[in-house]
């Protein structure tokens, strides 16, 4: 409860976009632009083994071959990105410290504003935090406890050195370097991210959590996350993002890979609240993310939950490859776009094994001049006997200048498959608003309440400490949306 209250109190401070602050820490930066030299610089900075550098260069050369072939099928409009005009590496000067005492107090101050209770570990109440500041992990808490249980939870740059066999085996095994333009870029230049391995049979007793934060001007963020749940294990992972207010557009292209072996289960929850740009649509984060899970084992299960309230551009399709027989994938999404935000988000459920099941619940909320698209693929392979899918896409419109779009793709190659797709589009009604206000709620409270109700099915899948924050964010994101 303490954490919940702490979170609630912190979130209360946010209002509008109070995350718009910048911490002044000198950073150790590579020069602008992208070249083999920069990639060698990144790799050298991280003291990487040769095989890692080779992997990066291979990706980079492939990316060059792609030219400027960015994917253009999404319903998104943004000016051309100049990849030579961004920095690809920035690290806080003092990195990888042993204790919190050694951490730059300014950095801790930033975390405090963000509501990451690093200072008081007992406040974490079972949440281990791997806090990423810019590109390098600074402090990892609860590490010891987790280590004793055999859980590996560390920056991926550290895992490269300490667990090369696991990284070699799994990195790029779900999202290969050639997967798509942004994943290729990420494979070439990723700076850091989290690595998680849950040993056989262990039910990880705490929620693992990482906060990402972009805090260097013009620094593209290229996070790389790899989570492996070994046979019969369970883990719940939380990812939350906030970024300081900026005028320039900031590029972000993360890759997240999840691997669930026999009888394993991974729950991955995201609250994304990056700077969405101002009311006129200036600034804001460009968020091109590739998230994919491989349900490799029998009876394995992956559940994605995302609450997307930030970013100017969101391009994101957390997916599940259901390889193992009886495996299942679930995708729960709330995407809120306001002002001039654009989101094209959804999922892919690829059924390969027998008796595989998938469930998609998507809630899109659009206000202002925003555009919100659900794009989802359900593919049932020839061998996926008795595969089942249920998809529900609901869109809520606030005002008359925004857009909601639903683009489902269903491909079935097996006659025993059963897929269901339901979609609705509605508007917040004047009657609902008046009813709430007649009970004493302000316009903003009323909108927040109604929209939270609309999203409830998704929000209730979030872990407690995230659910409270997410509920508040839903309201904050829509402030001023009803005139």
């Amino acid at each position, binding site marked *: 409860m303490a954490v919940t209250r702490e979170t609630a109190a912190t979130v209360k401070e946010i209002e509008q976009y109070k995350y718009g602050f910048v911490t002044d820490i000198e950073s150790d930066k590579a020069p602008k632009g992208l070249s083999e030299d920069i990639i060698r610089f990144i790799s050298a900075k991280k003291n990487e083994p040769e095989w890692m550098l080779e992997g990066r260069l291979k990706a980079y050369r492939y990316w060059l071959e792609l030219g400027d072939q960015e994917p253009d099928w999404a319903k998104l409009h943004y000016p051309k990105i100049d990849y030579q005009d961004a920095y690809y590496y920035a690290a806080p000067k003092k990195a990888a410290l042993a204790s919190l005492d050694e951490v730059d107090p300014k950095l801790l101050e930033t975390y405090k504003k963000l509501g990451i209770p690093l200072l008081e570990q007992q406040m974490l109440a079972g949440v281990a935090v791997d806090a990423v500041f810019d590109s390098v992990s600074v402090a990892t808490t609860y590490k010891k406890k987790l280590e004793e249980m055999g859980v590996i939870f560390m920056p991926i740059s550290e895992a490269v050195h300490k667990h090369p066999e696991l990284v070699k085996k799994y990195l790029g095994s779900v999202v290969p370097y050639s997967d798509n333009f942004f994943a290729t870029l990420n494979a070439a230049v990723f700076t850091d991210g989290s690595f998680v391995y849950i040993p056989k049979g262990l039910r990880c007793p705490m929620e693992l959590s990482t906060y990402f934060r972009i805090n260097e001007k013009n620094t593209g963020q290229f996070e790389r996350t790899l989570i492996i749940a070994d046979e019969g294990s369970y883990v719940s992972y939380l990812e939350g993002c906030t970024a300081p207010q900026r005028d320039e557009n900031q590029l972000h292209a993360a890759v997240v890979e999840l691997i669930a072996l026999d009888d394993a289960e991974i729950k991955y929850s995201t609250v994304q609240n990056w700077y969405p740009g101002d009311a006129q649509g200036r600034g804001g984060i460009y968020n091109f993310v590739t998230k994919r899970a491989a349900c490799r084992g029998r009876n394995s299960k992956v559940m994605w939950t995302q609450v997307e309230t930030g970013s100017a551009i969101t391009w994101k399709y957390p997916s599940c490859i259901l390889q193992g027989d009886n495996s299942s994938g679930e995708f729960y999404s709330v995407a809120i776009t306001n002002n001039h935000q654009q989101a094209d988000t959804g999922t892919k459920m690829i059924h390969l094994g027998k008796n595989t099941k998938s469930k998609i619940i998507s809630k899109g909320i659009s206000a202002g001049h925003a555009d919100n698209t659900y794009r989802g693929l359900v593919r049932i392979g020839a061998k996926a006997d008795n595969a089942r899918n249920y998809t529900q896409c609901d869109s809520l419109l606030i005002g008359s200048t925004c857009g909601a779009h639903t683009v489902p793709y269903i491909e079935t190659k097996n006659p025993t498959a059963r897929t269901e797709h339901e979609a609705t589009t509605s508007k917040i009604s004047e009657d609902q608003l008046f*009813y709430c206000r007649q009970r004493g709620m*302000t316009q903003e409270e009323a909108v927040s309440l109604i929209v939270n*109700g609309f999203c409830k099915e998704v929000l209730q899948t979030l872990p407690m400490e995230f659910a409270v924050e997410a509920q508040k964010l839903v309201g904050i994101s829509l402030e001023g949306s009803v005139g």
Partner: protein
Amino acid sequence: MALLEIKNLHVSVGDREILKGITLTLNGGEVHAIMGPNGTGKSTLSNVIAGREGYTVTQGEVLLDGKDVFAMAADERARAGIFLAFQYPVEIPGVSTSSFLKTAINAKRRAEGHKEIDAMEFLKLVKAKTKELGMADDMIKRPLNVGFSGGEKKRAEVLQMTLLEPRVAILDETDSGLDIDALKVVSDGVNALRSKDRAFLVITHYQRLLDYIVPDHVHVLVNGRIAVSGGKELALELEAEGYAKYQGAAA
């Protein structure tokens, strides 16, 4: 001082004048019934007092405790103590009745400078009140008004009224769609709230409700004007004779 004063109220929707000069004074402890045929402005009156948009007040004023109601937004009026029990309560999918109630209670408490209600205190309070109103325990867990029967919706309105303790409660055709048992329960709930600090404006088409919620004053609204006012016996007379003679008089 009167609790609620309606003075020479004229209201239009578009070019059409619906209320043509209503004057009415509600003192603490009083129950006023407004009766009249369909389409005479009964619901307009309640909506205008509560602050629904789409109505234009062309003349007159409404004072709550001497304060100008029209200077307040709908939610301010509610927090100041005006409560409207809706004829057709709206559904709010995904919002449990209990969290709706809590949000409403806390909005009022904050306005009054009080702390938000404690979770345990809230639960105890709601449980006691739902029991009094003969509501099922699990009802507060259900999304507000979603799939509620007509009777359940009206009970939920009275539950809200009970919890929000308004100064002036307006009941808009609360009897519509109720069977006799539900009518009794709802009326008992309302009667339990009668006090010298509170006034009721009961809008109804039929006299039936007034057998249970006995009014101090009855007003007959015809064509946007109060055609006649009287005591509770006026309602019985209307039941027997209908509105015809007043419709003629008002025209």
